[in-house]
C-alpha cells in the first residue's frame, strides 16, 4: 500500500476517475488525442491500451471504443425489440453517435439526435468511426439544442425516446428530474416507450430509489434493468424502461444480427433483478395500495 498525493486534474499519463473520495478508476493515457473546454463541459479523448479511444466529459468516462457496445446495445435494443412499430425515434444526448448506429440497424423512418454540445459531436466525428456515416443517413436529423427546450418546442410525437445523457452533474442535471419526464410523456405516442440510463445501481442507489418513486407515478410501466459496462464505476449499469402500454418482456421482433452483447435471453435476464435491487426499486402490491 502506498501513500499518494492526489489531484483530480488530468495529466498526460493517466486519467483518474473518482466516484467518491474513497476511490476511483485509473486509465493509463497512451495518447491524449483531444482536450477542450466547451461552453458546457470539459471534453477529452484519450487512447488507452485496454479500452481503445475513450471520450470523457468533465473527467467521467462516456464511451470507449472497445466496450461501448455493452452500454449502447442495452440502451437501444430492449425498446426497439418490444415496441410494436418503432418509426419516429428521438435520442436526447448521445452526441458520440453510438446509440444512433444501433437504432439504424432497424427500419425506423425518422431519427432525431438532440445534443446540447456541438463540440461533443465534432470530437466524436474525429475519433469514432461510426458517427459520420450515421449522420449521413437520410433518416437522421441532428439538432444542437437543449433536450428540455427541444421537448417543449417540438410539435410532434415519438414512438421511442432514448435519454442518453451524462450524469446528473453539469449540463444534464435537468434531464434527471420529474418535470422532464412529465414533459417527455406528453411527446410520446400512446404506445410510446422511453428508456433512460440511470447510473450505477451501487454508487447511485439512493438516487435510483428517488427516481423510481416518481417514475412509477408518471408511467404505467416503469421497469428497471441492468447490464455490465467494464469501464464504468462498479462495472454494472442501470436503465429504466417506461411506457403506458408496452410490456417490456413481450418481444415483437428479433434483435438484428451481429450484436456483441445483446440477445433475447439477455433481454429477459436484464429485467430479472436480484433481491436487494427488487426490494429497493420494485414497488410491491402493498406499496401501491398505500399510495
Amino acid at each position, binding site marked *: *500500500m*502506498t*501513500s*499518494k*498525493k*492526489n*489531484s*483530480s486534474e488530468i495529466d498526460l499519463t493517466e486519467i*483518474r476517475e*473518482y466516484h*467518491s*473520495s*474513497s*476511490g*476511483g*478508476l*485509473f*486509465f*493509463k493515457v*497512451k495518447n491524449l488525442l483531444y482536450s477542450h473546454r466547451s461552453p458546457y463541459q470539459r471534453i477529452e479523448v484519450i487512447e*488507452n*491500451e*485496454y*479500452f481503445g479511444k475513450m471520450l470523457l466529459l468533465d473527467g467521467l468516462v462516456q464511451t470507449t471504443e*472497445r*466496450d461501448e*457496445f*455493452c452500454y449502447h446495445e442495452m440502451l437501444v435494443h430492449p425498446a426497439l425489440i418490444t415496441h410494436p412499430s418503432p418509426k419516429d425515434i428521438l435520442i436526447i444526448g448521445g452526441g458520440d453517435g453510438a446509440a444512433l448506429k444501433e437504432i439504424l440497424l432497424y427500419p425506423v423512418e425518422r431519427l432525431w439526435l438532440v445534443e446540447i454540445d456541438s463540440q461533443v459531436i465534432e470530437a466524436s466525428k474525429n475519433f469514432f468511426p461510426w458517427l459520420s456515416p450515421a449522420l449521413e443517413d437520410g433518416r437522421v436529423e441532428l439538432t444542437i439544442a437543449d433536450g428540455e427546450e427541444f421537448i417543449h418546442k417540438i410539435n410532434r410525437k415519438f414512438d421511442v425516446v432514448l435519454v442518453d445523457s451524462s450524469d446528473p452533474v453539469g449540463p444534464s442535471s435537468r434531464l434527471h428530474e420529474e418535470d422532464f419526464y412529465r414533459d417527455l410523456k406528453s411527446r410520446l405516442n400512446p404506445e410510446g416507450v422511453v428508456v433512460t440510463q440511470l447510473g*450505477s445501481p*451501487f454508487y447511485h442507489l439512493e438516487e435510483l430509489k428517488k427516481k423510481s418513486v416518481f417514475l412509477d407515478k408518471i408511467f404505467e410501466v416503469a421497469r428497471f434493468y*441492468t447490464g*455490465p459496462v*467494464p469501464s464504468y*464505476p*462498479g*462495472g*454494472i449499469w442501470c436503465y429504466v424502461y417506461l411506457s403506458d402500454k408496452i410490456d417490456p418482456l413481450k418481444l415483437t421482433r428479433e434483435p438484428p444480427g451481429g*450484436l*456483441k*452483447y*445483446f*440477445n433475447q*435471453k*439477455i433481454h*429477459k*435476464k436484464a429485467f*430479472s*433483478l*436480484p*433481491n*436487494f435491487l*427488487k426490494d429497493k426499486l420494485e414497488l410491491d402490491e402493498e406499496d401501491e395500495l398505500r399510495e
Partner: protein
Amino acid sequence: MEEGFFYLETFTADFFRQLKVDKIYYQGKTEYQLVQLFHNRIFGKILFLDGKIQSAQIDEFIFHESLVHPALMTHVAPRKVLIVGGGEGATLREALRHSAVERAVMVDIDKKLVELCQEHMPEWSAGAFSDSRTQLIFGDARRYMERTEQKFDVIISDLTEPVKEGPSVYLFTKDFFEKIFNALNEDGVFVLQAGGTDPFYNRFFASCARTLEEIFPLVRPYWTFIFSFNNPWGFILASKKTDPLEQDEKVISERMRSRGIKGLKFYHPGFHQSLFSLPVYLIKALKKGKVLTDKNPFIWEA
C-alpha cells in the same frame, strides 16, 4: 480527493483501481499467499490475496449466494457438501442455510488465512465454523481428494485464481476435476468460481468450462455482476444427472421453503434460470476454451 493511504489495484497494465485505506487489519505473507485486509469507507472490509480482490463486506453476499445456491438448489437433497478453499467462511455460511445439509466439510490449505478471517472478518462466517455440521480440514485439496473415500452430493470450489506459483494452479485441471467427479454421488453437482467474464478477459472461464465438458455430461456456465470486483463474474455448474435449467421457479420456491431458507439478499427462485443466460460475446468465447491439464494448466496473468 483526500490525502491518505491508498491501495492501488491492477486490473491490467493500463486499467487500475484506487481504494482509500481507512484502516489496515492485516498485511503480511502466510506460508501460501500475500494477505491484505483493510477497510474502505464505501466497500467496508476488503480482502486481497496475492493482489487480487477476494471479497468486500458490502457485496460479498452477491458472490457467495451466486456460488452456493444455484448448485444446492439443483440437487434434490444435498446432505453432504464439500467446500474446497473458501477461507473466509461465507461459502460455508451459505451452504449451511440449507437445512437439508447434514455435513459440510471445508478443506483449505491456508490455516493462517482462515484464522485471520475468523479474527478480523467474523461477519463472513457468521458462526458457520462453530456449526455442529461443519468439519474444517487444513490441507491441500488435491491430496484430500486423492485420499478421501467419502462421497458428496455437492462440491463447491471457492479458490483463488491460479496465479503463478500460487496454491490453486493444479486445482483447475482435468486431472483434478476427475477426482471431483469420482467423489460425487451419482446425482452429484459441482460448482466453481471461474474468474471474470468481461468482454476481454474470459479465457480462464472458457477453459474451465471446456475442461469440465471432458468429464461431466452437463456443464452450465453462468455469471453475475459484482460491484467490488468492478467486473461481471463467472461460475460453472457441472452436474452428473440433474440440469439446473430444468429447475423452475416453482421447484426452487418449494425447496427454499422446505429447507427453511429466508433472508437472501441476492438469489431468489425467479432469478435462478436467468443466471444462466449468457451474452453473445461469452457464447463465442466459450467455443475457444482449451482443455486444462496438469501438464498445461492455466496461469493467470494480471
